[in-house]
């Protein structure tokens, strides 16, 4: 099943799925009718390897192979979708007929499939350095060194869990017009979690990163050591943390991962499906002021090597840099093909799906705020009483009411312009269409996150990136136990 390494020619890639151009043509014949506005077939082969360490031992090594095809026919706003993990000519035809059945049938024709360039769009990540080809020993060795380094950080680090996951995905997207687009996507991720124990006090610290790269990504510079020290440092720090205060407060968000604020507060609400249907708190607000003039937000799928980047989206549209908010004014939504067509705009390269088993939806790629002019230290100095948050767990949003929340995993009190005690258990909650209007300072220190984000929508998870410069938000509700 595995082609020789490095052979990524279109015919070889198609052959991996046991289909050829005539078979694809027959499936398209079955899929397309006069009334079918759009259609595609999405073949996918995923190989994932993971190794995990706990109690100082690499107890688990796992390898997974998953492949299948998803076939879609769209009429108006109706979608028929069929998928199968058994791929052959007969099953493909069956899936195509099932997908079309929803579109009021009629019409027939003959369709030819021409294999277009092996890749379309960008060339943002290496396929040669496919992480899966790294010897298992190298990965086991890295995990063992992680364990040693974490425990050496402080004797109160009692548990270390670490894992390395490497993933290589081959996508073949056959469009309505018979054009074939192929993308090979590597994805690697390293996670480190430390538990520090001091008497009855037990705290967790975690860190990690990755991207569309090979395993060697972790060995560059002192990258893996940095992740390990961060996880250990965070766990130890929290042993001395005080309960988070509760109430409305001025909050300074540090650069990088706190960009999750944008993802939750505005990103989801700007997805084209919700806005076409009128269920988003941002519906009908294009051209309106939704943020402070200091705020510009983009979603950019074209940054080389980033976790959220893609050469083409999962509908074969090349990704691009989409300006969502410019100078506080809402500029555009994120679109897949279906919602773009129904909204009368162009697709933006944001049609994504978790796997062949799922129909695409408008999704984010790498979402971040452009840098401003303030000095980060000055921003902190300007706060008399508030919270400085530098790392977060997860976040969630109700796109209709606009209310979002995200949970701090590393945060501090700011007292008289100085960072003081670390706090634990802080959760932030706000209103998406309103929160960015409360941004009163934007730093010049834009940073993207380390490559750990996974976004969930409608049961589908996709890798994403976020980024933020240091910003100050006034009057954010902080949830804690201390009143």
């Amino acid at each position: 099943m595995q082609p020789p390494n490095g052979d990524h020619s279109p015919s070889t890639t198609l052959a991996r799925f046991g289909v050829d151009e005539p078979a694809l043509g027959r499936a398209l014949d079955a899929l397309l009718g006069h009334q079918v506005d759009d259609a595609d077939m999405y073949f996918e082969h995923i190989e994932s390897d993971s190794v995990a360490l706990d109690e100082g031992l690499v107890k688990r090594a796992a390898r997974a192979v998953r492949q299948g095809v998803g076939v879609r026919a769209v009429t108006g706003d109706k979608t028929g979708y069929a998928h199968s993990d058994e791929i052959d000519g007969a099953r493909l035809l069956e899936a195509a007929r099932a997908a079309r059945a929803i579109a009021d049938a009629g019409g027939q024709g003959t369709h030819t499939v021409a294999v277009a360039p092996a890749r379309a769009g960008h060339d943002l990540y290496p396929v040669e350095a496919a992480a899966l080809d790294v010897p298992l020993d190298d990965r086991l060795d890295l995990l063992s060194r992680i364990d040693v380094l974490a425990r050496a950080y402080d004797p109160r680090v009692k548990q270390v869990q670490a894992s390395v996951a490497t993933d290589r995905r081959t996508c073949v997207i056959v469009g309505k017009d018979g054009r074939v687009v192929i993308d090979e996507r590597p994805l690697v991720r390293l996670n480190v979690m430390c538990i520090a124990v001091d008497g009855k006090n037990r705290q967790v610290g975690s860190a990690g990163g990755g991207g569309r790269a090979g395993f060697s990504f972790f060995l560059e510079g002192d990258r893996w050591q940095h992740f390990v020290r961060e996880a250990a440092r965070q766990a130890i720090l929290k042993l001395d943390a005080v309960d988070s205060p509760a109430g409305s407060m001025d909050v300074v968000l540090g650069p990088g991962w706190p960009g999750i604020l944008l993802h939750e507060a505005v990103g989801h609400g700007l997805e084209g499906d919700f806005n076409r249907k009128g269920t988003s708190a941002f519906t009908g607000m294009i051209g309106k002021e939704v943020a402070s003039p200091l705020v510009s937000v983009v979603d950019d799928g074209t940054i080389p090597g980033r976790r959220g980047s893609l050469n083409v989206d999962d509908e074969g549209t090349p990704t691009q840099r989409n300006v969502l908010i410019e100078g506080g004014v809402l500029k555009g939504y994120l679109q897949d093909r279906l919602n773009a067509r129904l909204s009368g705009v162009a697709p933006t390269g944001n049609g994504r799906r978790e796997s062949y088993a799922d129909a695409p939806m408008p999704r984010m790629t790498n979402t971040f705020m452009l840098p401003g002019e303030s000095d980060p230290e000055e921003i902190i100095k300007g706060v008399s009483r508030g919270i400085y948050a530098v790392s977060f767990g997860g976040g969630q949003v109700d796109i209709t009411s606009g209310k979002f929340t995200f949970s701090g995993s590393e945060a501090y009190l700011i007292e008289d312009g100085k960072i003081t005690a670390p706090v634990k258990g802080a959760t932030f909650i706000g209103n998406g269409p309103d929160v960015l209007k409360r941004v009163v300072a934007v730093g010049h220190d834009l940073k993207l996150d380390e490559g750990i984000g996974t976004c969930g929508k409608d049961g589908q998870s996709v890798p994403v990136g976020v980024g933020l410069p240091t910003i100050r938000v006034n009057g954010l509700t902080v949830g804690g136990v201390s009143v």
Partner: protein
Amino acid sequence: MSELAHDPEALLAHALEVAKRAGATAADGLVISGRSTSAKVRLGETEKVQQSREKGLGLRVFVGDRSATTSTSDFQRASLEALIERTVAAARVTAEDPFAGLPDEALLAEPPVDVDLELYDPDLASLDVEAALALARRAEAAALGADPRLVNSEGAEVSWGDSEVAFATSQGIMRTRRSSSVSLWTTPMAEENGEKQRDHWWAHARHLGDLGSPEAVGEEAARRALRRLGARKPKTAKVPVIFESGVASRFLGTLAGAINGGALYKDASYLCGKLGERVAPDFVEVTDDPHIVRGPASRDFDSEGIATRPLVIVRGGVLESYVLDTYTGKKLGMATTRGARRSLTGTPGPGTSNFWMKNGDKSLEELIAEVDNGLLVTDTFGFGVSTVTGDYSQGAVGLWIENGKLAYPVNELTIAGSLPDMWLAIDGLANDRDPRRGTSAPSLRIRQMTVAGS
């Protein structure tokens, strides 16, 4: 396409044989084959119909005390065999772990419960797409027809399917289980004075005949969306908090996480070493019963092939049992509670079945009537709960209670506390547990939590 793909038991037997030939000293595995369909409408029109067929093999191999796992949906002989050989080779280089291994043969030999759990409905296969779309339309129409303020919809969807699990070990055990399920949800959107609110309701059943009326689902979804309109942000305060049963069930899920052997042996739970201790008031009872007929999480054997048994988790407020599989049991010096769960990918780990908290004897209205000034939480969101530290801090939506009555809706607030304190502070249970949930608790009241708002 390989002929192996069409016979799960033959596929499993072949995989175990290949593993043995490659040098595995023991192995177990499972094949899950499933078919499912979903049919969705929005504003009365068909929006999406999706059909899927999936089949996957998951395999765990041992070479002495070392192990590795693999999973695949590619059943061509050559690639399958290469993958298994590669997995056995990987097992040779992982760490030796004296606690690793298959369950005792004597335990595996026990026959599963001699009761038909009725997890499979043969009639469900006859549900066709048009009939499903009609059910979805009825639910959505009932929701949108309930009030003129319900002006929009995220749609309504019916999904149904069945799956078969075949499980085998190199010791010669082979077990299979078929199950089916059908569910329906709808999410209407209400709008008033420029404020938008949505909420959803759902139904779920093993058998089509148990799904209930789609209108009832739509009407409840409408009620839930409407009651959110006019929401205010409450003042920050410490007050009594009532979790409506859905939220209480999520809260009960944190107990399931904290007593999971996988967390306990790593010292990663606030309930480490708390077996036999009081964790809740004496009227709190929690069981994990895999034998409930047509139960949402029922199963006759666990993911290591062991016949399951009902388990008392909390009795009289005292923690009586953890949830363990063979490995975590050995690590803790205890027997497995027959609670192994496993997906195709990865190793087995402990998990719960029908994890239910016993009903109290009051209605939700009576719990509310006993509160002068407090909060009824109808939904929570976010990720601010840690079963390692016990910290609890969540975004919340609800209704403010004044003088024993629901006064007005609230949102953009958080609730915070610590799990061990919250459990001990439960001071009332309602009688409204929803048996359609796998992890299910009745509405419950906590004496005091911090509510953060303006």
